[in-house]
């Protein structure tokens, strides 16, 4: 006679696989997960409350600290919201610099995901390769912004300052190098049978479920929904570049892996075109009043971050501080589907499923 009983297991809040402070309360039957309850909020810093007492330029550094793996897109979404309200035109060169830095950030973010996801699954060396390449991007972004992760580079109406001399050339040189490395990644991991067995058929959801759970980004595209805000609701100057929005059909962790890895290639395409098209000179900031006061009213904008749709809502009463600021944080929305994916799964698959969602806890908690 084997006696079984339910067991309650806390995963986290300090656990390497959660990549931040995130707790999962699991009800286990043997190795099977019966119920999973995510507990979040450990990293809640009250950004939205703080912002109500800050001017818009002062809020930009706070956005760096939400999705700290792709801070450029966070910078952009706030500036974009204010610019939309105030109808500010952004100078050409500044717009290109924004796109280049955002796409570099996207590649860096996907590289971190790729490296750490494989590390979670037990493969050590991909992590080292991914961080080698990421370090080059970080150095580039450090050169242009003065910060490695928290850039604070964008401003309402443009960017803080121009790229240093020779920077665009460095970006141009990086593109073919990264392409070469991507091939190496594919040879190293993508065809690996052990890896495929770990990720295929794991964490599956359908297109309808993905939409119902408000998933976005690679988490949505892995179910076959061809939806990329850069292409479908073009903002900035993304309509000038040729690139694909990558989709996969199976909706499992393996599909998400494919989408993210191929998105690096698409970002490289954008980088290549942007580095060629960028005007040699130009203003860094458009016609922006000294004190930024969006008109009375409200606006909601959304853009494509590496993790999905990042949105920014501003309600303004005509003052220099926002009356209400709200970020639609993709990790927060994407994480909601986790309990549903975990039920009935083997405990060992927990890491593979959680990792494939690609969350950043700073963004989940706001």
């Amino acid at each position, binding site marked *: 006679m084997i006696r079984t009983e339910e067991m309650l297991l806390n995963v986290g809040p300090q656990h390497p696989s959660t990549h931040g402070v995130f707790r999962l309360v699991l009800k286990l039957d043997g190795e099977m997960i019966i119920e999973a309850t995510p507990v979040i*909020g450990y990293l*809640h810093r009250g950004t939205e409350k703080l912002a109500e007492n800050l001017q818009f330029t002062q809020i930009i550094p706070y956005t760096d600290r939400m999705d700290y793996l792709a801070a450029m897109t966070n910078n952009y979404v706030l500036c974009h919201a204010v610019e*939309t309200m105030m109808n500010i035109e952004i100078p050409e060169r500044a717009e290109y610099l924004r796109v280049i830095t955002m796409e570099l950030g996207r590649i860096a973010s996907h590289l971190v995901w790729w490296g750490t996801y494989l590390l979670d699954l037990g493969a050590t060396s991909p992590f080292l390769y991914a961080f080698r390449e990421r370090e080059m991007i970080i150095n580039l972004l450090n050169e242009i912004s003065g910060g490695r992760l928290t850039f604070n580079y964008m401003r309402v109406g443009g960017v803080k300052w121009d790229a240093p001399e020779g920077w665009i050339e460095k970006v141009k040189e990086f593109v073919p190098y990264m392409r070469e490395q991507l091939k190496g990644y594919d040879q190293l991991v993508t065809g690996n049978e052990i890896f495929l067995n770990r990720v295929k058929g794991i964490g599956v959801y359908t297109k309808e479920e993905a939409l119902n759970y408000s998933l976005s980004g690679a988490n949505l595209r892995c179910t076959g929904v061809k939806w990329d805000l850069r292409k479908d609701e073009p903002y900035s100057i993304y309509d000038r570049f040729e690139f694909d929005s990558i989709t996969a059909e199976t909706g499992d962790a393996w599909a998400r892996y494919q989408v993210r890895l191929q998105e690096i290639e698409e970002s490289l395409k954008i980088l290549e075109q942007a580095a060629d098209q960028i005007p040699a000179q130009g203003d860094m900031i458009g016609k922006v009043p000294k004190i930024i006061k969006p008109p009375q009213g409200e606006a*909601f904008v*959304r853009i494509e971050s590496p993790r999905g*749709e990042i*949105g920014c809502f501003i309600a303004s009463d005509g003052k220099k501080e926002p009356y209400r600021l*709200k970020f639609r944080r993709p990790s927060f929305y994407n994480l*909601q589907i986790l309990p549903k994916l975990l039920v009935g799964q083997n405990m060992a698959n927990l890491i593979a499923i959680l990792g494939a969602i690609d969350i950043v806890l700073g963004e989940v908690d706001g």
Partner: protein
Amino acid sequence: MDQKDVEQLKKEAAAKAKAAALAKKKAKEAASKEEDSASTEAEPLDIAKQKAAAAAKAKAAALAKKKAKEAASKEENPASTEAEPLDIAKQKAAAAAKAKAAALAKKEAKEAASKEEDPASTKTDPLDIAKAKAAAAAKAKAAAAAKAKQSGAGDLEKEKAKAIAAAKAKAAAAAKAKMKSGGGAKAESQTEPEDIKPSPNQPILEKYIKIIESHFGSEMLEASYINRLSKDVPTIVAKPETYYKLAEFFKYNEQLGFDFLSELHGTDFQTHMEIYTHLYSYKNKQSVALKVKIDREDPVIDSIAPLWAGANWPECEAYDLLGIRFKGHPNLHRIMLGEDWVGYPLRKDYEPYDVEV
């Protein structure tokens, strides 16, 4: 041969050698003497003569030049008529004397000036100097103070002018605002011609309203407009009692089909609470902003989490930070702050409460 002979021979040889050496020496000396005497007496003399002649010539030429110059400068300066080095020296001396005299004069002038300023400083005792300095400093201070007074008065005037200008500007702005608020529709109609171009999303909004009204009649909506600040998104404001019905209709109606909830959050507008949802239809590629105003004192509204699972956590967040309660929510809890938190931070009248402070 004998040893003696040998020695003698050696001696003789040595003597001979010595003699030869002496002879050579003498010869050399004689030769050098000859050379020396030759160089001192013979040609060198000529060379020296030549050189001397050349030098003399050069001197003569130089003198001639000098004379010419002097001749030229005679007109300017009759004192330099007597040429020759002596005269030059005299001139130099005279110039030096003049310079000295000038310097002295300057000194005297300075002293005289300082005497004028402060007679006490004529006796150059340190004490006096210190006194003089002190006096000078005092004077400078007084002057600075006077200047400051003058400029201060100027600033005050400027400030006054500024204040007046600001007041005028404020009054003008207020007048404008009054015009606008008082004029109401009239003012709007006046400003409208500037952006008379209807929003490209106007037909879409009209379509939504038409569909809604054909199903529910005209009692469903509180307001509907195009939000021009927010990329022209069609915005529909529901009534609290129709909010859920409308949301359900938005999701399941075939023509609308908003299958994706992009965003849900609440805002405290002090007079009321407001829920803002941004819906998107992947089928029609269209957006709509659905809003609902709720009572601030008793903020209760139907949950739309049963319609879109994605609204689950955002509603928890609105409950946690604003205290809005969602009826029919599967698991409404304080998602960020925890159940023991006192108050709702995003409310405008929130007072932080901490038992440990």
